[in-house]
């Protein structure tokens, strides 16, 4: 193991602009400046035991440019450790005792300033995407002073978005939620004056489902959704509960950075944003129902148009992002159904808190649309049964798109990424 050593910032390695922002983590109120300072190897693949260790590694990178891949241990299996070691990283567990590095299988020089993200990738096998603090920093304009909730898993793109904002802008404070605090975050947030929060639609649905009254007590001025398709129902529910907050949804990925930001409270983005070229801004296009983005915030080696793998559908004057191309389209006897569109209809039902829509193998038609739902806590209006939900869908969708089996789950499923693979 390595003993933590003081590493005062120097003229060559100045502290980031946000160094004195408040950082509440693991129940302690710190600042970026007062975070622990583990001595990290370079290049390092840091497996952070908890949020404070991840933040400490991020600060180290910001000051010293340490080449860094940051993750939690649970996202890196043995095969990935070996792969990272082969790629020259010193795989380093960081915990309360400091940094515990292991020698890389193939030592090499560090690439100063390089940050690596592990993306889940469409194949399920995580892949590395190269960034820098600069390409990860997408909010540059001066912001009103805010205290941000950070519920994301360390090292994910969404986590870096919140972290870079706080590192680079004075007045952008952080309250970090550990995984075991996730269900009760509104109490933590209210206690620390959180007024801005970013989460996946699944994260927001779970919060509304578990305790909407507690959420209403958080003095939120800014609500941000991203990481999954955003439907109208979740935007409407949040607006009704928190009328004082600005509600934004963001389309962002490790590959193309934050490319779409929508503040008008509606799902999708305006059709006239398509194929509009503006210097310094991403260009959005659609090819064969796939969203294609050319972005200045792209990952290393990803210049030019990037096929996102996300399926879009134009409905009236909006371009809706309905889901992953390889899973969103369900072919029912030759008729194409968008799982995302069906999901939007189900979550539009006042008694549905969450829904997942998939295709299921069936005779004659090849596949049929089926769904799983979580019902909102009963409010006296009664709980709809399968037939009632089918009728709700039948009134709003073509016949072949109506889910023919609807299973009720008792809890909204969520993964470490705060997504639920809807």
């Amino acid at each position, binding site marked *: 193991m390595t003993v933590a050593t003081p590493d005062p910032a120097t003229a060559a390695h100045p502290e980031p602009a946000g160094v004195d922002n408040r950082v509440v983590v693991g129940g302690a109120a710190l600042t970026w400046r007062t975070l622990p300072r583990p001595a990290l190897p370079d290049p390092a693949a840091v497996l952070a035991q908890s949020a404070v260790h991840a933040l400490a590694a991020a600060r180290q990178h910001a000051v010293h440019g340490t080449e860094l891949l940051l993750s939690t241990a649970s996202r890196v299996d043995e095969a990935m450790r070996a792969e990272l070691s082969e790629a020259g990283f010193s795989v380093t567990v960081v915990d309360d005792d400091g940094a515990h590095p292991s020698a890389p299988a193939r030592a090499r020089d560090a690439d100063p300033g390089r940050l690596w993200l592990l993306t889940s990738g469409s194949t399920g096998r995580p892949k590395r995407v190269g960034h820098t603090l600069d390409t990860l920093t997408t909010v540059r304009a001066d912001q009103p002073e805010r205290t941000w909730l950070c519920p994301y898993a360390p090292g994910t793109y969404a986590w870096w978005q919140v972290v870079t904002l706080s590192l680079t802008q004075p007045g952008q404070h952080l309250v970090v939620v550990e995984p075991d605090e996730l269900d009760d975050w509104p109490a933590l947030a209210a206690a620390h004056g959180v007024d801005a929060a970013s989460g996946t639609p699944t994260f927001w649905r779970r919060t509304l489902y578990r305790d909407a009254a507690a959420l209403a007590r958080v003095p939120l001025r800014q609500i941000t959704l991203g990481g999954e398709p955003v439907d109208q129902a979740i935007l409407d529910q949040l607006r009704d509960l928190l009328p004082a907050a600005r509600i934004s949804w963001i389309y962002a990925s490790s590959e193309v950075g934050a490319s779409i930001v929508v503040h008008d409270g509606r799902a999708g983005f305006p059709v006239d944003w398509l194929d509009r070229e503006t210097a310094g801004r991403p260009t959005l296009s659609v090819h064969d129902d796939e969203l294609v983005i050319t972005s200045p915030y792209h990952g290393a080696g990803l210049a030019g148009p990037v096929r996102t793998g996300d399926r879009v559908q134009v409905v009236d004057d909006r371009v809706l992002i309905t889901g992953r191309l390889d899973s969103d389209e369900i072919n*029912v*006897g030759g008729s194409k159904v968008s799982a995302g569109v069906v999901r939007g209809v189900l979550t539009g039902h006042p008694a549905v808190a969450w829904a997942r829509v998939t295709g*299921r*193998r*069936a*005779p*004659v*038609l090849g596949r*049929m649309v*089926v769904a799983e739902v979580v019902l909102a806590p009963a409010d006296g209006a009664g709980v709809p049964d*399968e*037939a009632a939900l*089918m*009728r709700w869908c*039948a009134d709003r969708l073509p*016949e*072949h798109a109506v889910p*023919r*089996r609807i299973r009720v789950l008792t809890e909204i499923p969520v993964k470490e990424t705060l997504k639920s693979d809807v």
Partner: protein
Amino acid sequence: MHSLGCRLRRMNELSRAQIRDLMAQVLKNQDKELPADDAAQLREIGFRSLDFSELALRVEDETGEELNFDAPGLRRIATVGDVLDFLVELQHQ
């Protein structure tokens, strides 16, 4: 076929009557009724391929076993009785 009892039903297998109940449920969800007569024409009661597929999924969900949809060859399914016969048979594939 198996009506003489010379063949025991598998544990999770549904009887013709149970499948009939499920078929009635599929129609009831659409405010339609299943006639008692097995000779009733599917076209007349409004039981279509989507409904047939849904019924097959319900049979799977009840038994917890996947039906092998590819096993039997093509056939004409025109009456309520055809549907029930087909699904009873499919459980044996």
